């Protein structure tokens, strides 16, 4: 065990060193490798955080502070800024360094969309929970024909492009096209796999059939067994699944961009609009608002998650 014959052994000549501690097999090679792993990890974390920080910064500073072109263009007339409201305020020359103007502007112009997106995410969570938990229970508890096929097809949206699903849905369900239900359908298709995975993984991890039989032998009816035996054991999995569904639904763009109607737009489509049409500051403010909606869900996932999260969110 302790023979360190590998390349460049660092602690070969100190037999007493590993007296009490568990044997740690370190050599120069492994040290270098783990140093490289640390470095790459730190760089990745930095690369993830840096753009978040830049857009946070951009969202609260005036055009003047950013040193970019002013919001006030060459055609600006003093009379244009005489009215009230964020629209007029936007065209006024900006003097200070920090401002909340961009946030106010985004809320004023796109506030309805933010509410719609949150509503969509909540409805997705509810529906995936109801449909997903029932289906997961049936998939794990019983054997029936076509079972493997159902499991494959549920996970199918993970590996097929959202835009293809969107175009298929638009063409096949023309009557749903003008409504927001079609956006909901797209979100359900792309979030269902996460709920099903979280719940089936938990169901497969313990012998719930034995628990159920024990409850049945004590005279519990089907509903009582569900209510007092199965569901309490699934609470954690449902929580993880719901958080994943919420987060994915908030950020879903590939499928919902083509499913959106002019009246009902999801927030990522608004982000696309601001990136194309508006200034860096307004885009940053819109992005920051999105992250503020998203981060609580992600943090909560980490704190309730653990190893189940890895299993459930593979291929997110």
């Amino acid at each position, binding site marked *: 065990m302790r*023979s360190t*014959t*590998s*390349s460049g052994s660092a602690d070969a000549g100190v037999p007493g060193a590993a007296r009490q501690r568990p044997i740690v097999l370190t050599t120069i090679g492994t040290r270098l*490798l*783990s140093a490289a792993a*640390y*470095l*790459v*990890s730190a760089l*990745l*974390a930095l*690369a*993830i*955080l*840096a*753009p*978040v920080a*830049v*857009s946070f910064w*951009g969202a609260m500073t005036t055009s003047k502070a950013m040193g970019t072109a002013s919001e006030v263009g060459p055609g600006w007339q003093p009379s244009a800024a005489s009215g009230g409201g964020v629209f007029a305020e936007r065209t006024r020359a900006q003097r200070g360094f920090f401002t909340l103007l961009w946030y106010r502007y985004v809320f004023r112009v796109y506030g309805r969309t933010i509410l719609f997106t949150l509503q969509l995410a909540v409805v997705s969570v509810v529906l995936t929970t*109801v449909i997903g938990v*029932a*289906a997961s229970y049936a998939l794990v508890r019983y054997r*029936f024909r076509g079972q493997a096929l159902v499991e494959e*097809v*549920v996970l*199918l949206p993970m*590996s*097929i*492009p*959202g835009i*293809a*699903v969107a*175009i*298929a*849905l*638009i*063409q096949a369900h023309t009557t749903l096209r003008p409504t927001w239900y079609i956006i909901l*359908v797209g979100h359900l298709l792309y979030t*269902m796999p996460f709920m099903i995975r979280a719940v089936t993984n938990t169901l497969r991890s313990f012998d719930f059939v034995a628990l159920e039989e024990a409850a049945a032998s004590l005279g519990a009816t089907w509903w009582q067994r569900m209510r007092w035996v199965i569901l309490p054991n699934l609470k954690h999995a449902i929580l993880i699944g719901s958080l994943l569904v919420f987060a*994915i639904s908030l*950020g879903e*763009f590939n499928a919902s*961009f*083509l499913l959106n109607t002019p009246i009902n737009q999801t927030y*990522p489509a608004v*982000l*696309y609009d601001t990136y194309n049409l508006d200034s860096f500051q307004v885009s*940053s403010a819109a*992005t920051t608002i999105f992250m503020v909606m*998203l981060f609580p869900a*992600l943090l909560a*996932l*980490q704190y309730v998650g653990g190893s189940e*999260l*890895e299993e459930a*969110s*593979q291929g*997110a």
Partner: protein
Amino acid sequence: MRIGGPLLVVPLVAFLVVFLLYPLCYLAANSLVPGGGVLEGRTKQVGGWSPAQWLQTATPENYVKLFQDRYYVASLVNSVLLSLAVAVGSVALCVAPAWVLVRTQFRGKRLFRAVLTIPMAFSGVIVGFMIVIMLGRWGAIPAFLHWLTGEAYLSMVAYTLSGLVIAYVYFEIPRATLTLEAAIRRFDFDLDAAARSLGAGLWQRLWYVLIPLLLPAIISTIALAFAVSMGSFGVALIIAKKFHVLPVDIFLEITGYANFEFASALCVVMLAITLTTNLYLRRLGEKHYVFRQR
């Protein structure tokens, strides 16, 4: 028959049949209808055919046009190459954080993991915006380098092919890290110690013990990353200005020409590529299971 039992799966099956399988079949069928689109003056209502009409008019016209047009073949090749580069690159990068998360304990580990999972729920557009503010014409990095050296290096990288690869890899970090982390956690490190006690060096242990056992996970990560990159068009919509990829072409076909039939054909080709790649890689992964680790 009582409620419950296998019937609980019925709502899910109904949902999948109505909203996934039927639309996909419709897509495939519609791709065989002669192309409409405003350019050819043949606009018609979407879905305006009956099965009998379809049987009479079905032709592979759209596919012939697609594979004869160098523009579409080029974007097909672009998409596949880009996705391959992204899949391989993200796995190579994300082994490091996965390893760190499994093998070390430190304070703030959960926070570190939370940071790594941030891009998971980002839509492609956000990643596109982020790469523009970091590496665009006057992004944060060129501006910093300008302050440091007086020369704005790395300016405009966002709009090149490497910018596209960076953005897609950014997008893949959480997925790749979590999959690889789960695999490394299942790896039995006694095997490593055993190999070592038999005198295997570092590289030998990596090459003959660790990598073969992680290969299924690596392959499935590559498969997922490939599928996601093939389909993610938010990033490309923002930054692929000189470079065209398939999802953006499909999008333009719909919004620009309302040519649903041709767009359907493009979608079917894209689906065929992602699904066969996925299936093939999954087979490959199963073949490389040296033995099941549990």
